[in-house]
């Protein structure tokens, strides 16, 4: 089982959203990391077959997905970043509708719907109109529909947006159980959501693939670049503007502990700390402070 993204590019009128991107996805959970506008959603829509590529192909087990057509879609599950529902449907009606479209026999469909409603904690609202659900509940309905056909390839675009911390934990657990022998690709801004469940990550920037690897492999890229120091709370804003700060924590005595990314320590009392995936994300997609500092460093 392999999903190949083979030299795929997508050009819109005035923008190259994805540039000659190649990636081979094997069974396991893959995290797709990238800043806003990096091309994650465009890439996922091309994998879903709802956006044609400008060049290159997406292949499943060596066959272009356009050629596979229904066969590909019957083993495919997709949760878009932004999606809606037919307003007239209740949760149960909607899932029955999608189950029929996914080709599930009625009895099997009903069983699977009940099972998933329990898993995403929506069993008590299955007769409620979707339009009346909260944002988090709607996203859980979206997750349930994506899993209905027990897909071999599951693409989830920002699946945890709008979920509360408890729901995110339950979602991670559900996905960990589900991912066995399946290809799951999750794009997210919330790095901790994929840090512990993803077996591999692909980092995409300006439409180009910048790095791939396991969490450990990727984290190694920022090894020796993550520092921690303690400064007075008055100094903190100045550090924040100058550095790529991963976190700030008040120590309670007018002092602030700063975790930051830099090639070199910014102060004598800075010490190296073990890097995390979030640090890599910040390193590759710097905000104002860090970017300024690195520009200075490059200069």
């Amino acid at each position: 089982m392999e999903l190949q993204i083979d030299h795929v590019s997508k050009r819109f009128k005035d923008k190259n959203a994805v540039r000659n991107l190649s990636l081979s996805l094997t069974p396991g959970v893959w995290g797709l990391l990238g800043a806003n506008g990096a091309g994650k959603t465009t890439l996922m829509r091309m994998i879903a077959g709802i956006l044609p590529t400008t060049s290159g192909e997406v292949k499943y087990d060596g066959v272009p997905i356009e050629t596979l057509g229904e066969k590909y879609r019957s083993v495919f599950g997709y949760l878009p970043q932004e999606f809606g529902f037919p307003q007239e449907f209740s949760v149960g009606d909607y899932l029955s509708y999608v189950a029929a479209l996914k080709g599930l026999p009625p009895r099997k469909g009903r069983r699977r719907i009940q099972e998933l409603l329990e898993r995403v904690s929506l069993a008590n609202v299955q007769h409620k109109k979707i339009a009346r659900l909260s944002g988090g509940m709607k996203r859980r309905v979206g997750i349930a529909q994506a899993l209905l056909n027990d897909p071999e390839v599951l693409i989830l675009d920002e699946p945890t947006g709008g979920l509360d911390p408890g729901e995110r934990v339950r979602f991670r657990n559900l996905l960990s159980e589900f991912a066995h022998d399946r290809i799951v690709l999750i794009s997210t801004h919330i790095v901790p959501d994929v840090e512990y469940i993803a077996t591999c990550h692909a980092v995409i920037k300006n439409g180009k693939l910048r790095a791939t690897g396991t969490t450990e492999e990727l984290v190694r890229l920022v090894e020796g670049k993550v520092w921690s120091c303690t400064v007075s709370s008055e100094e903190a804003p100045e550090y924040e503007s100058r550095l790529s700060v991963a976190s700030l924590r008040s120590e309670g005595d007018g002092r602030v502990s700063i975790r930051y990314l830099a090639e070199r320590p910014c102060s004598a009392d800075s010490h190296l700390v073990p890097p995390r995936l979030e640090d890599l994300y910040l390193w590759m997609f710097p905000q104002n402070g860090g970017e300024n500092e690195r520009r200075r460093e490059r200069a």
Partner: protein
Amino acid sequence: MRILQLELKRLLKSRLTWILLALALVFSVLLAYLPASYCYSNYTDESGKAVNLTGPASIAFEKERQADCAGSVTPERVRAAVERYQACLAQYGVTESYDLPEGVYEQEILPIAPLLHGVKEAFADPDTGMAPALSTIDAQRLDDYYGVCEARLASLMAMEQADNSPAQRKAAQMYDRVEKPFEVYPGMSPTVMDYQNIMGFLVLLFCVVIAAPVFSGDYQSGADDILRCTKHGRRQLGLSRLAAAFLISAAAFIVCVIVYLLTANSLFGWECTKTSIQMVYSILTLADMDMGQLQRFFAVAGLLSVLASVSFTLFLSSRCKNTATSLAVALVFGIAPTVIYMTIPGTAAVWICSLLPASGTGIQTSVLYALTDFEFLKLGGLPVWTPYAMIGACVIEIPLFSFLALRSYCRHI
């Protein structure tokens, strides 16, 4: 099949659909009753008191008053009616019926009025088209009444289709095939057909409103991305959506037209449906039909027009990214035939109105009015009577726009 069922369920779950279907049904009954409510009669009873009748009572009274006219419109009966008319006017020394003393017209002329229908038209001046007064017509010529009608049709077509001699020949052939003598059963009003037209037009608009969001609604809400990634989410879903919209529209129109005709014919009397359309509209009307056949023919033509409009709306829906646009454009095309008919003169309007999907049951321009008219389109050297052109266009448009809608939906990005 299961997807079609679910798609039907989905459409029927919408409150808007139910409101529109209920409105269509209410309008069907209301519009069927209105023509009857407009009927008006008056007479003076035995005590000399003026009596006014309206609605069904008036219809019943007129039927009774004109009962002797019922049956075949043979030249002999027409001649007798004209002679009676002329004798009545001569008796009172007038040349027009409106100069008769009060009550005489109701007593003497109205009972024979159905047989007099079309006589003046048949004897119209071949050069000017001006109809003579009944009192000036030579009654002896009525012995060849249908020959006079045929001659009048020839002169009319020479005026209406001056540069289209194939159309003139075609019209003569068609009129030759019309069953004669005509039949008349008093009581039927052409308003019944006008209101059937209005009913059809309203149902058409309602069906367009129901069909407009079928595809664009999901594009707009973002629901489409999920659905088109499913196994049957493209061609099969597209086909099911087309079928569901057609089934609901067809069912709505058929139910409404049945309710309308049952109500209207019950009010006016079922025997009236045996009246030849020449005895209600122009005596020269080319279609070989009685009123019942006209009602059914127009119902079928209206159904085709509704389905063609729905097909076109579904195509628009598959192309537009939001419901407001697809609905607005579809409604514009729904009323376009009426607007074009009123604003664009000449052959261009006839062509456009014949081709637009909603023409079949438009206000002022529809298969009904085309059936009672003498317009022919020149298709190469072939004369095509406009009702046939309208129906032919709908028959082509239903599969054509369905195919384009499906193609557009499957390729939607």
